[in-house]
């Protein structure tokens, strides 16, 4: 019945469909991602400052990159009340007295609020914190304690963290962190901050240029500001090699990608026929959006590789981006064999979920590009190992996404055997891809360990959990092979076995590494992830219960 209803949606002529799809694509492409307003001046006025070169965190980066990192460190976000990072940071420098009264610094835990005598406020101003004599004194003793190698309690860690945020604010407002002045000869030496602007030899033109820039800012004259900014940035010296990173930062490729994925998911789920193989205008639009999203996703990834000079899978942010990419890649490969809107919709949902997390939680998933520790550098086997193993995460994530959709069918439309047959096949295929890649990736981990320190296997928690996850999926495949579980069991298994991946990927770093007994428990969003996992498992249980109920009735 339902199938017939869906089919009655008027199907456009092929030509009109193509035209409309192209129009939609163009609209999506042209609309820029929502950029926080640059208060006081328009966006263009800030461009010269965004492109200044800064030496920070062991590399040379554009000021835009630096400003976002400082903002995330101090405030936990990339923007503040609609102002973007560069203009906010400049505001700290030019109008410190106004900005230090702003509630910039997040005070997260209740314990911390109590220790500061705060009531309900979520944030505190730098000035209020800096005039809390007791807090400063406490922070000094904590710094000494931490230097002496003593373990800090949870509250003490939070206090240290607050103190570091405070220091970074004032050091930035003072221009000390703005290490934009390169030594005239040896550029790999330590660069000077703005606080030393008059003291650095050979940079006499800089101070007048900065004064003129500050004056133009105070006067609120946009044209003059832009002009002075240009002069100041030129006086510092240009680094054309940073244009690529600027392009990457301004484009927000991953944000565009998740928009498109999200659009694709909604279009495919709500408007395209659920029956797998039927092609309509909307299914074409959905597919086009996925392909466009995938193009942005890939482009962003390539840019990031190029900027960092290495494959970007060295931290949680990068791996989330890569795993999302892999999920879409495998869905496209499977789609080539078996064109299914369900498959595409599930992949779009998985990728959009991953990229939204990466895009909106900069404090937890750090998007900055940082240099690697020596043992990880120029390491062919490490690169191959990490890419392979995270590709397998992508395949399993796809299986889990499709599994959710299948569970929905089992619970609410158990008679749609045509749809379910396709979905369980995709789950099986995705798990197969994942098993090969995870087995290969785990072994390549051993190859890397042998290459780097002469040990193939050392029961390190990360490798052990990769093995546990693999054993989980192998159990699933064997159980299916024996016939202990049917297609429904496979679906539930593909969703729950992903917990092993989640543990290997996230849990080892944030649950085990901190030590179950230590104060770190709760760091890295462990409580949120636990709640999410529990919620998801409850959904699975609910679907299973509904499925049994249906089967009985």
């Amino acid at each position, binding site marked *: 019945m339902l199938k017939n209803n869906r089919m009655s949606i008027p199907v456009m002529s092929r030509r009109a469909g193509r035209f409309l799809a192209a129009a939609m694509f163009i609209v999506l492409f042209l609309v820029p991602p929502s950029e926080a307003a640059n208060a006081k001046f328009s966006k263009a006025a800030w461009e010269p400052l965004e492109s200044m070169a800064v030496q920070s965190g062991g590399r040379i980066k554009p000021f835009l990159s630096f400003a976002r990192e400082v903002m995330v460190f101090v405030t936990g976000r990339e923007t503040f009340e609609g102002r973007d990072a560069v203009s906010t940071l400049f505001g700290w420098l030019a109008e410190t007295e106004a900005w230090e009264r702003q509630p910039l610094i997040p005070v997260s835990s209740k314990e911390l609020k109590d220790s500061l005598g705060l009531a309900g406020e979520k944030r505190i101003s730098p000035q209020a914190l800096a005039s809390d004599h007791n807090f400063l004194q406490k922070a000094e003793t904590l710094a000494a304690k931490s230097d002496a190698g003593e*373990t800090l309690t949870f509250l003490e860690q939070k206090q240290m963290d607050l103190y570091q945020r405070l220091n970074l604010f004032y050091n930035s407002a003072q221009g000390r962190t703005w290490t934009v002045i390169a030594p005239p000869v040896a550029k790999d030496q330590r660069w000077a901050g703005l*606080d030393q602007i008059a003291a650095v030899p050979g940079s006499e033109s800089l101070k007048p240029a900065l004064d003129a820039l500050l004056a133009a800012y105070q006067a609120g004259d946009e044209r003059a500001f832009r002009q002075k900014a240009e002069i100041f940035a030129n006086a510092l010296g240009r680094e054309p090699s940073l244009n690529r990173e600027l392009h990457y930062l301004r484009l927000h490729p991953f944000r565009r990608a998740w928009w498109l994925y999200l659009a694709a998911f909604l279009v495919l789920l709500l408007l395209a026929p659920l029956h797998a193989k039927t092609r309509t205008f909307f299914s074409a639009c959905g597919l086009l959006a996925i392909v466009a999203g995938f193009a942005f996703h890939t482009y962003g990834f390539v840019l990031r590789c190029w900027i960092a000079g290495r494959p970007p899978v060295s931290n949680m942010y990068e791996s989330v981006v890569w795993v999302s990419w892999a999920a879409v890649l495998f869905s496209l490969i499977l789609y080539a064999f078996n064109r299914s809107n369900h498959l595409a919709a599930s992949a779009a949902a998985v990728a959009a979920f991953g990229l939204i997390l990466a895009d909106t939680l900069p404090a937890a998933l750090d998007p900055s590009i940082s*240099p690697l520790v020596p043992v990880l550098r120029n390491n062919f086997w490490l690169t191959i190992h990490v890419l392979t193993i995270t590709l397998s995460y992508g395949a399993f994530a796809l299986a889990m996404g499709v599994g959710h959709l299948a569970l929905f069918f089992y619970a609410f439309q158990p008679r749609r055997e045509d749809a379910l047959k396709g979905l369980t096949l995709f789950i099986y295929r995705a798990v197969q891809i994942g098993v090969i890649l995870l087995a290969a990736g785990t072994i390549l981990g051993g190859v890397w360990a042998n290459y780097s320190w*002469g040990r193939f296997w050392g029961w390190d928690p990360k490798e052990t959990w990769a093995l546990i996850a693999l*054993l989980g999926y192998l159990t699933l495949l064997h159980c299916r092979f024996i016939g202990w579980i049917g297609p429904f069991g496979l679906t539930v298994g593909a969703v729950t076995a992903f917990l092993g991946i989640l543990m290997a990927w996230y849990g080892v770093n944030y649950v085990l590494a901190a030590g179950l007994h230590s104060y770190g428990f709760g760091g890295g969003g462990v409580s949120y992830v636990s709640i999410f996992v529990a919620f998801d498992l409850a959904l699975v249980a609910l679907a299973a219960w509904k499925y049994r109920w249906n089967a009985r009735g």
Partner: protein
Amino acid sequence: MLRIAIQALYNFLASLKLAVLLLIGLAIALAAGTILESLHGALAAQKVIYHSGWFTLLLILLGANVAASALNRLPWQKRHLGFLLTHAGILLILFGSWMTQRFAVEGILALAEGEKSDRIELPQPLLHILVPKAQETLTVPLKTTAFEWKGRRPLTEAGPQGLKVYLAAYYPHSEHLEEMLPKAGGKPALKASVYNAFMGSGGWLLQGDPDRDNVHLGPAHVRFSAVEFEASSAPAEKGEIVLQAGGKSARFAVEDLLGKETPIPGTSYSVSVIRYLPHAAVENNELVNKSEAPVNPACEISITGNGITEMHTVFARFPDFPTIHGLKPSQSGVKVGFEAPSAEGSAENELRFVRKEDGSLVYQIITQGVPLPPSPLEIGKEYTTGWMDIRFIVESFLPEAELRTGFESRPMPSQGKSPRPAALVRFEKGPESHEAWFTTGSHEIFFLGGVPYHVTYGDRTSSLHFELELKDFMIEYYPGTQRPASFKSNVSLEDPVKGVSKELIISMNEPLQHRGYKIYQSGYQLPQNGSEVSIFQVARDPGIPVKYAGSIVMILGIVIMFYMKRFSNQKPLYAEK
């Protein structure tokens, strides 16, 4: 009958059911291992799980299951290829693991610049017992435990000159502790705690022991003395202002600048101190002075010249705080610092406990060198000091005491920090006995039955049969940071047997290979004084090629099984029903 039993056993061994049970069992055991490691450290997880007998048995069972299920399909056909390769691969990997466990060597070689060695340290602690007179030596391996252990376990009952050695306690991670015990003829000792709302610390003070009769607890100095404090007449010093401009620096005493414009050498600016606040505090957004005690010394400073005047506020205790008012980058480019005398010297705060000759206890509070009259001290009673809400309490007092040191077991440190094991060893000879604590590198000399024994605790060493010398250690940092980007060692290798003598570089991921050993750059130490130390990981593992071969075969098998129908045409069991 027996045939039937063997057939039944074989069928069980070859069954998929056993395979699934083993997979689940392994997964649970491994998960338990990682949790155990998180709680009690890697060593505990290895002893209890990964290297335990039952875990080995589990792996042997897995190997038997994999082998039996392959043999069960005899005669093999083309369609079995994927399955067979996968299972053969698993067997090879398991065999390679056994070879590693049996034959692999893994050790550490640490060399200071200019040092040469042919021995590596293996992670096997042992006691080295020496009787110098008789030139007798004995090496006893120490049986370590994964968890805190106490008891009596013989290490050897036939030591040199009739010595018997027992392990009395072993702590995988410990803390060195001191204990004050009453002892006739000892020195007076008391235990004090000093605290306020934000900090607290305490400890034992031993009168008359220059190392142990005073301690810094928080911002105060606490002393246990036989005499009362006498005020010195020297006034408190205010400290110095340090100015940096154009790469030069100048120092001025605060007194000299108070209200006096003084030119800064090498610049066209002059400096003066507007206000000196020994006890600065912020009240209602105003910086005010709360007392004359130098609790939080601060100076308000003006820098004048070239038509501008800059106001700075500098805090001696918070040198990292920005100093300038108006909060733009400094126009003058002058950096201002303030160094006030620290809590040491005559102007410090001191809490002094005095045990007078008549045996009575008093305490004395000395603020900035000015003492209050002594008051009687009661054990267990809380007193206030008058500084920053700091209070103190004397918890116990021993008129005659002795300091004894020992070790206490601690939970494993978090990842990245290495544990400090400690062992209590008991030496017996006839009716006499001696107990001593050992940690890595510790050394103990004692007499039993008139014979001197020297005992050292360390790791077993093993000869490489060739010698390495560290010529130079090099480290590079990421620009503008203290983060190492790479480090490497220039070493020379001498192998007289093989006639090899060469100089080469060992760097990250580029090990030296010689005689089946691989020598990896793994770490370094940069002591403040003394030469740089390069740390190498030395490994030899004949199981590696077997494991690699197994891995390749297994992956090939899985791919064939999943994607090449001709070689993997095994019907799922459920479809046969």
